[in-house]
Structure formats: structure tokens, C-alpha cells
């Protein structure tokens, strides 16, 4: 501890105080970076992996997404006369392997991330629930 008498000017602490003062006065590129969440939201990137969306016309119900999923999140269920995937978002890793694997490119992940809910059953997103994106044919 004898070095205290050598460094008695405490210049290190003073330099630190100057850095903090620069932040108080917002000199340089030191502005406030908070995004106040419920009132303002940040825009997600186009490649963001959020909730899934299935293209009704392109999906053939082959089940490749079901076998590729690491976590057994997807189940293929019958909906009307066709078979479509049903996602259990409570178990989903949001890894995107199902999107990579789909042979028809029918599956994509939207930018929706506010998926919290009250019961486990309500986290199972079946084909009828806003899971459909009808592609407008050109």
C-alpha cells in the first residue's frame, strides 16, 4: 500500500471523473440510447426469427419440417382436407432449421416476438390461428 503515497494525486480517479462528466454533458457521440419500450419499439431486421408463418398454397404437408425440428415442436395436423404444421411455441427454440429444410419454401419466420401468454395451451399455434399468409398471386 506504499504506492498510495506515490500516487497521491489520484490522477486515475480524476481521469475517470472526466469520462463520466463527458457523458453527463453529452460531449462527442455519447447520447442517450434508451428506447422506451412500450411507447417506442425498435424495428427488427428482415431476417429476424420470430413467429412462424406458413404459405397456404405452397405447403404440401410433407412433414420434413417435423423431422428436422430438434425439439419436436412441429406436428403435422389435418386441417380441412389438407395437412399443415402446428407449432408449439412454448417448446420452440426459434432456431430456424425448419425454414432451412422446407422443400417448397413455404415456411418463413416473421418479425413478431411479443408472444407471451397466460396458459401453455394457448402457445400451441395451430393452422387456423394467424398462421396463414395467403400469397397474392401476380
Amino acid at each position, binding site marked *: 500500500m506504499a504506492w498510495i503515497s506515490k500516487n497521491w494525486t489520484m490522477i486515475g480517479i480524476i481521469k475517470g471523473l472526466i469520462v463520466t462528466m463527458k457523458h453527463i454533458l453529452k460531449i462527442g457521440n455519447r447520447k442517450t440510447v434508451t428506447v422506451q419500450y412500450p411507447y417506442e419499439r425498435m424495428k427488427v431486421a428482415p*431476417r429476424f426469427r420470430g413467429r412462424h408463418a406458413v404459405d397456404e398454397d405452397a405447403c404440401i404437408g410433407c412433414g420434413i419440417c417435423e423431422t428436422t425440428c430438434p425439439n419436436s415442436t412441429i406436428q403435422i395436423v389435418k386441417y380441412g382436407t389438407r395437412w399443415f404444421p402446428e407449432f408449439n411455441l412454448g417448446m420452440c427454440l426459434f432456431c430456424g432449421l425448419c425454414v432451412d429444410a422446407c*422443400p417448397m419454401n413455404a415456411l418463413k*419466420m416473421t418479425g413478431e416476438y411479443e408472444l407471451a401468454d397466460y396458459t401453455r395451451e394457448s402457445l400451441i399455434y395451430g393452422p387456423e390461428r394467424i398462421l396463414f399468409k395467403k400469397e397474392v398471386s401476380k
Partner: protein
Amino acid sequence: METETLLLNMGPVHPSTHGVLRFKLRMDGEIIRDCQIVVGYLHRGTEKFGEMKTYLQFIPYTDRLDYIAAMPNNYAYVKAVEELAGIEVPQRAEYIRVLVMELNRIVNHLVFMGSLLLDLGASTMIMYGFRERENALQLYESLCGARMTFNYIRPGGVREDLPDGFIPKLNEFIKDMEKRIVDYEELVNGNEIFLMRTKNIGVISAEEAINYGMTGPSMRGSGVDHDIRKLEPYSIYQDLDFRACMRREGDSYARYLVRVDEMRESLHILKQIVDTLPEGKTINQRYSFAPNTGAPSAVTSYFPRIFTPPEGEVYSRIEAPKGELGFFVASDGTTKPYRVKIRSPSFCNLVALPKMVVGLKIPDLIAAFGTIDIVLGDVDR
């Protein structure tokens, strides 16, 4: 005078143990006489999952090992699979891999600095670190869609190419980061109170570090010049110009300085990569076809579900931000590995903690423990 030692339990739920980790300390007054570490509160059986999932399906599980810097985990596993099956990787993919891994090194060291200073009482540094981390995570989000569990690297290359506008934003990040590191050094490096808390605390000599199996920046702070990127260069590291940062003293302050230097070296590497990024494919030709091009494919890589590497076993290691991360993958010719063993850097570094702290007080334990830089996902797997 006869005295008894007191058994003190710094329990799993504690603000400064970086996760759920338990210390059983034997104290003589204020001095620690013995320290036992109890791990396993976050054990999730990742290695067992390696035997139950195919080679492709296991990659998201490797993300969750060291969740602060997830790219090197992906890469270590994928490198093992590539060695096992003899898959070639195009040049552009290698450059992109090193780019994201070095960016992850910077991100990891920011969290390290922040949490070390938060344990010591100055809470401004963690906010600055997370402010910079936010910019890097937005880069990652534009690249692969996720901020923490990337699932980006595939055997044979990467999942998809860089988006438009990535390189200019990366350049901006690099310029910003250089100025901020100067800020951090002024705020922390010379601070006399920080020096009082970390100099000559938690000293471990070079021989002891090697004997305990410590690797990474914690060991390079003791004077052992061992960096896997220099010793067994993998990927494109032999073409890049950087140096392995090292200090000699072996105390907490040296380990801290090594990581600040490493952040600078990573920025240097990033600048070189941005300058020399080649054009080309980002995935091995064999795994890049999309089977039915009904609509333009979102991703450029399509790794098959039925992928059977030849029988054999391989141990491959890389220099993760926390140390040497090694994957031992044994294959028996089926679609699932026979055994995946993970040599995690945090677990091996943690073993040296009792040696460091015997004879010190509890605040010194916190300072020394903060500089080893562990994350519980890595320790417990």
C-alpha cells in the same frame, strides 16, 4: 489460542456468482482457508443430447453452452464434423466465420469488463459495455436473425450470405469501438481504487496455471504464451496479422489487461477481414442446392437430414473467448453421433480458483473470480 473455522456458504443464488454456482468456504475470521466449488445447478445434459440428435439438429444446442458468445461454440462443433467427414469450406465462408467469431470475442470481453466492475461496485462500466454490445447484437440480428443463439454456421460454410449494408455498419461499429475503448481505459485502468482491489490479488504462477489446465486469457495473464490461433492455426488465421496478448504478473489486473488488449487485436483483425473479404460462395457446393425452387430461397445452405460421416473420432479445438473450447465427436456411421464430449474452458478454468483465493478475504474472492470470466452454461453444460 484454539479457534474454529466457520463454514460459510455462498449459495447458488447470489448476485455476484455470474449464475448459479455455490461456494463452500471455510473461514478463519475474515481469511478464507479453503474453498470448495459445487457445480451442476445448470446441468442440462447437452452431451447426452449429442447422442440423440442428428449432426444438424445439435447445432442449436451448442449455442446454449456459452450463451454470451455463441458463435465459437457453433464453430468448434462444426469444425469437428468437417474434419470427421472431410468437408471443404470455400474461402468467403471462412472469412465470414472469422469475422463473426472475432466480433463475438469483443462482445464477450465487454460483458467481462462490465460484470467485473459491477461486482466491484462501479456500475457505469456495465452500462457502457451493454451499450456497445447492443450495436454488435443488431449487426448479428441483421445477419442471421437472432441476437444470442445464432445457429449460423453449418458444416461446409455458413447459413446465408451477408446482407446488404452489413459492411458499412460494421465499419461504423469498428470506428465507434475504438473510441470507446479509450474511454474504458481512462475510466478503469488507472483508477487507484480498482488497482487496490485487483493488483496482487488471485496470483497464479505459470506452472500452476498449466498444471491446472487453465487456458485462454486467464492463463495468458500468467505469462504462458499459448494461443491456439497461433499454435495450430485453423481457418484463415495464418493469413491474418495479429499477436497473442500476454502479461507476466499473473494477478487479476494482468488478466484484465490481457482482455482489453485482446479487444484491440480483434478490432485489428476485423479491419483486415473487411479489407480483404473475397467474393464467392458461402457454402460448400454439395450442400447448397435447394431441392425445389418454387420461390427464391431464403437461405443459401441446405444441409441434408441424412448425413452419415464415416466412422471415426476427432477432437478439434479452437480459441474461444474464454479459453480452449474442444469438441470430441465420435461417429459410428449412422446419422447421429456416437458420443459428443465438450471440453469447456470455463469448467477447466474454474478449478484453479481455490488455489488463487486461499489466504485472501471474500471481496478478493469476488475480484479474482470475476477475472476468470466464467459463464455457467459452459461450466455445467
